[in-house]
C-alpha cells in the first residue's frame, strides 16, 4: 500500500498512519485476507512503484481529476469518505488488475456509497 499525507484523510505521525482512508484500506485488506504494509512517499514515487509492481494500491487525497489515469487503474470517485470535503476521492491500482479493481470498488460501494 502506498499513501501520502493529506489533511484529514491520511495522518502520518511518526510510523503510525491513521485517518478514514487508512481505515478503509485496512478494512479492504481484511476483507481479502491480505496484510497491509504501508509506504509513505510522494504521489509520483508511489505511482512509479505501482507501475513497477512494488505496490498493490495507492490511496490518499487523490481525486477523480488525477493525472495518473494512463499509469494506473483508477477506481470510481467516492464523495462519502469522512474528511473528503466534497472531493471525489479515488484509489489507484496497477493497470490491468481488473478483478482487484472490481473487488475494491465493490467494497467501497458498500462502505462509503457510490
Amino acid at each position: 500500500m502506498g499513501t501520502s499525507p493529506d489533511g484529514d484523510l491520511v495522518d502520518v505521525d511518526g510510523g503510525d498512519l491513521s485517518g478514514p482512508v487508512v481505515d478503509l484500506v485496512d478494512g479492504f485488506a481484511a476483507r481479502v485476507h491480505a496484510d497491509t504494509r504501508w509506504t509513505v512517499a510522494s504521489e509520483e514515487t508511489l505511482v512509479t512503484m505501482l507501475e513497477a509492481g512494488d505496490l498493490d494500491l495507492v490511496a490518499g487525497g487523490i481525486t477523480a481529476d488525477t493525472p495518473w489515469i494512463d499509469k494506473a487503474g483508477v477506481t470510481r470517485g467516492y464523495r462519502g469518505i469522512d474528511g473528503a470535503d466534497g472531493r471525489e476521492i479515488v484509489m489507484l491500482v496497477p493497470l490491468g488488475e481488473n478483478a482487484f479493481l472490481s473487488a475494491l470498488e465493490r467494497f467501497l460501494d458498500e462502505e462509503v456509497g457510490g
Partner: protein
Amino acid sequence: MRETGQFGRTTLPPEQQRAIRGAVRWEIFTIVYTSITITVIALVVGESQAMRTAWIEDMLSLIPQFAFLTALLFVRRRPTRKHPYGLHRAMGIGHLVAGVALLAVGLNLAFEAVLGLLSGEHPTIGTVQLFGQTIWLGWLMVTVMAVVIIGPVFFYGPAKSKLAPVLHNKLLYADADMAKADWQTTVASIVGVLGVGVGVWWLDGAAALFISLGIIGDGFRNTRAAIVDLMDQRARTYDSKHPHPLAADIVRYLRSRPWVAQAAVRMRDQGQVFHVEAFVLPHRRTVSIADLTAAAEGVADLDWKMQDVVVIPVEHLPEEADTGR
C-alpha cells in the same frame, strides 16, 4: 429532341423515385439510430481500446449518410450554362470524402492499437453502479455492443443494399456494405473486452487493431472506387465489379439502325447517371439529322441512367471507345 433536348435531365422514373425516397428515409433512420448508439457506447466506453475504436468507427459511419443526403441536394439541380454537365459528380465527391475520412482515421486507430500493444498497455476495466448494484463495466460493454449491432446487420444494411442497385448508387452501396460488415466490429470488441476480463490484456489491443484494419480496408476500397470514377473510368456496375452492360446494349441498339455500319461508345459514370458519347460509322457519307436525333432518343430510352446522350457520326471509330465486344 424531346428527352435529349436537355442535357442531364434529372427526373427519375417512378421505381427510382420510390427508391430515392426509401434511401432518404433509411439514411435518416441510420443517422438517428447511430446517434443513439454513439451516446450509449460513450457511457460504457471506459479504458478499452477496442471499445474506443468501435465507438469512433460508429461516428465515422455517419459520414456516408451525410455525404449521401448532401449530394442528393446537388444532383437534383438541372444543368446550367455554368454547370453544363449538371452536378451529378457531387455523389462521387461525397464518396471520395467518406473514403478518405475512413482511411485516415483507420490508420490513426491502427497506429494507436499497435502502440498500445508494443508498450504493453494493460487496459483496466472496473465496475459501475447501476440501480444500486455494483456490476463489472465489461458486462455492460458486451451487452451494449450486442444490442446496437441489430440495426446495421438486420435492418438498414440489407435495406440499403437492396436500394443501391436500383439507384445505381455506389455511395449507398458502400454504406450498406460497411453496415453489413459491422458485426465483425461487434464480435471483435466483445472478444477484446471479455479477454481483458479473463486477464488476457493484449486481446483488447488485438481487437482494436482488427477493427481498425477493417476501417482501413473500407477506406481504401471506397477511396479507390471514388477516384477511378472521378477520373472517368468507363462506367462499371454499382459494385464496381464488372463493366456496365449498358455500354454493350447501346452499341447493339445503334448497330440495329439500318443506316449504321459500326458503333462504339464512351460512357462514364457521373455518380448516379451516365454521360454517353456514342460514335457511329454510317453506311453512306451522308447522315440525316432526324436519324441522329432518333438514335440519341432511342439510346436515352434504353435506361433511365442515360439522360445525357450525344450521337456523333465519324469516319473512324475511336480506338478507346467500347465496341461492346
